């Protein structure tokens, strides 16, 4: 308790408050630009903070990392373009709400989710970091492989509405993730001797193409506006009040976010989608999901924001980053002499707890910024498409280009834009494909690792209790959409 008090007093010094505010604003700005993301934002900000006090620098970068998710949710809601893969779940209901003229409500839900989910996640992190890290250690390569399969099967079954199409989309995503160097043998696969593909299909560029470019071409076909009604109804505060009417959903989504975040490499994209799927399953009105359901936005955003503290558990306590952003943050910690590991909570307690307290305060600052700007931002949905479309294209393709300064990345984004459009016309949703791309390397690496450990025996995939539970959940998630109507028929037949 003393440590937390000291940390609070430290954070309230003017230079640390300024770093916190600066990191929050930069994070939102970075998140709003599709393709930039927290990792690029931290990399760009590093030269600025290198000479600062380590705690102040980590507060700035931690706030930037945390708030970029909120920035990404703004574009996901307003223009159907996620700022990062972690915002993909928010598209499902956030954008339809916008089309119904309720963009302000969606932004209010998002800001409140960022505040509540982030605060719950950080408090759990402060209290339970060591036992959570121990739980993460029980997962071996086989368990990680099965966790990724579970995430893919749940998303494929629930998001698409037709399990087979969702699985096909996920399968295509996994196949595309095999492009480039094979992580086990170093062999080049499917690159056709084109150098930009040697490191694999770059995730950000694919994300920009699948969502931003596709959305731009969809909007370009008409000269209307995003909002299909020419006015905005509801506002930020309606979103805030609506949020607190679903306490059970808040607890569920926070728990899912925290648990998923603790598992390295599974990541925020999975957390949001899994929470959305669970919210749909347990809702009284599942038919509203995907058509502007407030519970959908609440679940995905709360889980994504609760996930980031869980992500930090493994990064700080074990030195295992859960995402690219966490990997950059880990590098920054090492640069400032804060070596990760279990001892960091005692040897560098002042810095670590200052960071935790700062991240709790960031949640509230996010809410205030959202409150001030939500209505103004929602006006974007009333602008004509001839203004919005080129802006989306310029900003998103710029994000693609700026990562490696290569025009080839713009071509990759355009190719994925064409793929996304064809998928849309074919009745496929790109979200399982994106998740397949994100998790593909993890799936393949852990598949091979597990087989190496077991000497080629497949029993390793169902040896442990955790594996058995994961397999059962995967089977249930795939069979569930078909068992539900069958069960209804049986019970109605009995009546």
């Amino acid at each position, binding site marked *: 308790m003393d440590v937390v008090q000291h940390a609070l007093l430290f954070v309230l010094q003017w230079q640390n408050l300024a770093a916190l505010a600066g990191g929050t604003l930069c994070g939102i700005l970075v998140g709003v630009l599709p393709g930039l993301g927290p990792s690029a934002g931290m990399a*760009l900000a590093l030269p600025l903070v290198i000479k600062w006090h380590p705690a102040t620098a980590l507060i700035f970068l931690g706030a930037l990392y945390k708030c970029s998710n909120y920035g990404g949710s703004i574009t996901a809601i307003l223009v159907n373009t996620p700022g990062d893969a972690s915002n993909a779940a928010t598209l499902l209901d956030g954008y339809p709400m916008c089309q119904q003229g309720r963009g302000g409500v969606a932004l209010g839900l998002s800001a409140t989710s960022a505040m509540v989910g982030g605060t719950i996640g950080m408090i759990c992190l402060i209290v339970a970091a060591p036992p959570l890290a121990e739980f993460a250690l029980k997962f071996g390569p086989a368990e990680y492989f099965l966790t990724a399969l579970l995430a893919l099967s749940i998303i494929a079954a629930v998001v698409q509405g037709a399990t*087979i*199409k969702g*699985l*096909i989309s996920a*399968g*295509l995503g*996994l*196949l595309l993730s*095999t492009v480039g160097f*094979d992580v*086990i*043998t170093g*062999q080049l*696969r*499917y690159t056709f001797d084109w150098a930009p593909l040697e490191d694999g299909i770059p995730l950000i560029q694919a994300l920009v193409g699948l969502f931003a470019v596709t959305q*731009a*071409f969809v909007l*370009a*076909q*008409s*000269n209307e506006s995003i909002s299909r009604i020419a006015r905005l109804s509801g506002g930020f505060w309606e979103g805030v009040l609506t949020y607190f009417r679903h306490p059970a959903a808040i607890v569920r989504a926070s728990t899912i976010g925290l648990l998923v975040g603790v598992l390295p490499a599974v990541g925020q994209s999975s957390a949001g989608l899994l929470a959305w799927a669970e919210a749909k399953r347990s809702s009284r009105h599942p038919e509203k999901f995907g058509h502007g359901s407030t519970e959908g936005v609440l679940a995905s955003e709360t889980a994504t924001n609760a996930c980031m503290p869980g992500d930090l558990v493994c990064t700080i306590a074990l030195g295992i980053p859960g995402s690219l952003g966490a990997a950059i943050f880990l590098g920054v910690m090492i640069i400032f002499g804060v070596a990760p590991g279990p001892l960091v909570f005692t040897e560098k307690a002042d810095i670590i707890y200052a960071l935790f307290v700062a991240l709790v305060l960031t949640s509230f600052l996010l809410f205030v910024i959202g409150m001030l700007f939500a209505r103004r931002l929602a006006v974007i949905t009333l602008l*004509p498409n*001839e*203004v919005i*479309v*080129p*802006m989306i*294209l*310029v900003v998103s*393709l*710029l994000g693609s*280009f*700026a990562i490696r*300064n290569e*025009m080839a990345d*713009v*071509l990759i984004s*355009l190719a994925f834009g064409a793929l996304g459009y*064809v*998928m849309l*016309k*074919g*009745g*496929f949703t790109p979200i399982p494909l994106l998740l397949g791309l994100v998790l593909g390397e993890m799936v*393949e690496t852990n*598949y*091979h690792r597990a087989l190496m450990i077991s000497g080629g025996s497949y029993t390793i995939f169902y040896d442990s209790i955790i594996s058995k539970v994961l397999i059962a959940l995967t089977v249930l998630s795939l069979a569930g959409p078909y068992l539900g109507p069958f069960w209804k028929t049986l019970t109605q037949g009995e009546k």
Partner: protein
Amino acid sequence: MWCKIALLFVFSAFYLLANPLPEESREFPQLLAVMSFALAAIALVLDFTRGEAPQGEILDVDDTELKVQDAGRRRLRRKRYCQSWVIVLVSTGVGYLVGFLFTSLCLLLGFALVLGRKEKRVFNAIVAVATTGVVYLAFVVVMKVPLVGGLAW
């Protein structure tokens, strides 16, 4: 249906292109390709075997005008879609030659002049140039991202 047929070819290509690779490298992608091919084939079979629901016909209503309007709207949307792609591809080509900054300018001007409303063309063109200026200041001057450079320099 055509999308699923195309996917069958895509998954077959992934399988066949992996053949020259060593066994450890091709095992995983070929397994995925086979499973995805099977799923796509099942989906295609389900599409063929699903019976069409009988639709009632109302013979005494002339819907020619609706069909013409609908077809007209579809043609206009397709035209705008193709124009968008032309603008994007030309802008990307310009970017390869002289840098991404000029891609931004071409994109903004292209959409303003080709797809924008006639009465707002001048205003949209001014906004396009101003936005390019903001992009230059923010990314080239402040963030040092090299947006000017290409084959022509």
